[in-house]
């Protein structure tokens, strides 16, 4: 049985990675799962220098999901290279670094700092709804998606995944723009902007007022967008948004994702990633599927 997939020439032992920002750089969850079991670890967004992030409360529970407005707190690319990368290199897994910035220059700086590092792919986050500058602003028009993708592709040594925002009228337009500018792959979806009000206190629950909605609640939207994008471009897709078990992961794969990422589910089940890998293997065995690649985009 083959569970390995290849994206832009990079081979992953299985199609399961972690959703950026939900798994740190893997350290914390290494207590629960063997990181070497994962197809890849996708790191928290890394900026050119340390970011403080937003005020608290930064997270709120919603029906079947959650809101977050972390605001991309991160220790910066230098600490990442010195501390987190060597940690991850101890495991037999691929490393995808999620890159954030306030300006295109910021993004490019991180990409250039990572050029000589032993990382497998870069995931460019142009879809974070929780920062005032940058983030989602780059991901909500085809022209800016194309521009930033082009600038990054000029400098990147590793294959580039553009991470798309669901907060758009037509995500396939963004996908096409990224493809036109030379992106090697796409990942979707980032969180959907949401809000929660505390009725008793008559105030916002999050200090940032709005946050990004994630978790099982958003899965149908994510599956639809993966299907839409898979039918609009030729690029491989890393699908995410509400995946909590193997069945969910298979939905994304059948809709057109080559890989899937597990995000919010880690918070309510720290073993989720490995359980999903095992569940996919079981599904394949039970259904006589020899190669996971036969399932990708099999529902048309």
């Amino acid at each position, binding site marked *: 049985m083959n569970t390995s997939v290849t994206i832009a020439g990079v081979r992953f032992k299985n199609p399961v990675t972690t959703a950026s*920002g*939900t*798994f*740190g750089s893997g*350290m*914390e*969850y290494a*207590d*629960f799962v063997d990181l070497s079991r994962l197809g890849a670890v996708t790191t*928290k967004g890394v900026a050119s220098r*340390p*970011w*403080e*992030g937003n005020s*608290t*409360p*930064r*997270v*709120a*529970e919603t*029906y*079947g*999901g*959650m809101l*977050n407005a*972390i605001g991309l*707190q991160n*220790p*910066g690319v230098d*600490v990442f290279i010195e501390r987190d990368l060597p940690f991850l290199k101890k495991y037999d897994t691929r490393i995808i670094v999620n890159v954030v910035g306030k300006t295109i220059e910021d993004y490019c700086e991180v990409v250039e700092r990572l050029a000589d590092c032993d990382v497998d792919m870069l995931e460019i986050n142009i879809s974070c709804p929780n920062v005032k500058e940058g983030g989602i602003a780059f991901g909500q028009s085809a022209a800016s998606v194309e521009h930033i993708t082009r600038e990054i592709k000029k400098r990147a040594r590793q294959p580039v995944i553009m991470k798309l925002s669901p907060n758009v009228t037509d995500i396939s337009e963004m996908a096409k723009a990224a493809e036109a500018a030379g992106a090697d792959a796409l990942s979707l979806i980032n969180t959907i902007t949401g809000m929660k009000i505390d009725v008793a206190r008559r105030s916002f629950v999050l200090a940032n007022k709005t946050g990004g909605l994630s*978790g*099982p609640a958003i899965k149908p939207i994510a599956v639809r967008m993966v299907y839409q994008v898979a039918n609009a471009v030729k690029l491989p897709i890393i699908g995410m948004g509400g995946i909590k078990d193997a069945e969910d992961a298979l939905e994304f794969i059948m809709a057109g994702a080559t890989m899937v990422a597990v995000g*919010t589910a*880690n*918070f*309510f*089940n*720290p*073993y989720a990633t490995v359980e999903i890998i095992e569940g996919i293997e079981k599904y394949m065995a039970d259904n006589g599927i020899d190669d996971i690649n036969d399932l990708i985009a099999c529902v048309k």
Partner: protein
Amino acid sequence: MLAIKKKVKVAKNSRLAPDIYSIWLEAGDIARYALPGQFVSLYCRDGSRLLPRPISICETDRDMGVIRLVYRVVGKGTKELAGLAASDYVELMGPLGRGFVPEGKKAMLVGGGIGIPPMLELAKQLSCEKQIVLGYRDVTFLDNEFYPYGKVYISTEDGSVGAKGNVIDAIKANKLEADIIYACGPTPMLRGIKEYAEKMGIRAQLSLEERMACGVGACLGCVCKSTYTDSHSHVNNKRICKDGPVFYAEEVEL
């Protein structure tokens, strides 16, 4: 001990006061390795509520492998918890975070409201001289269980039991001295303790609270402001779930 997540059996669940419950859980190794001030994350059965409910460990019985939690029903998650009966199961992760660090010869343990429970196991384990200050709004709970471990001072906001006022009032009124304060309670109380400790030159360990998502340090949801650049985050943020919940007063801004 590394944290684990597992289903544990309820040994007993009972009401201590209006909306205040005490639950004993057969938590096995978690009971054997948990330290005072550490917490566990409880998960709801109802799938519409996904995030963990962090609850401090109130007592542990290492031999029996059981832990006790004392909690206030404030929302749907704690309401669900209150509905559990002996031999029901509940999903839980722990032990989590860093607890209190024993130090000094004369300690003051200060608990405010639902911050009182974690002080009980601490009171049991500390071998030094102990003064225990418990602050309530009105109805008291757990207070009787502290008597074996030190001199207990009670304050209530409405003055119905003990001294009228808050814990700081009680500390001042009784001119309490110590070389270490351990405290858990609402932020305004902790702020008062921090100020008092600074003024008196007493070391203080404070247990903080924030909304959590992962509970293990990965999501950066639960940070507090740190006085200096934190060695993990490289900014002025510390993760309450992982680097805390207990911090030295001088480490954090409140």
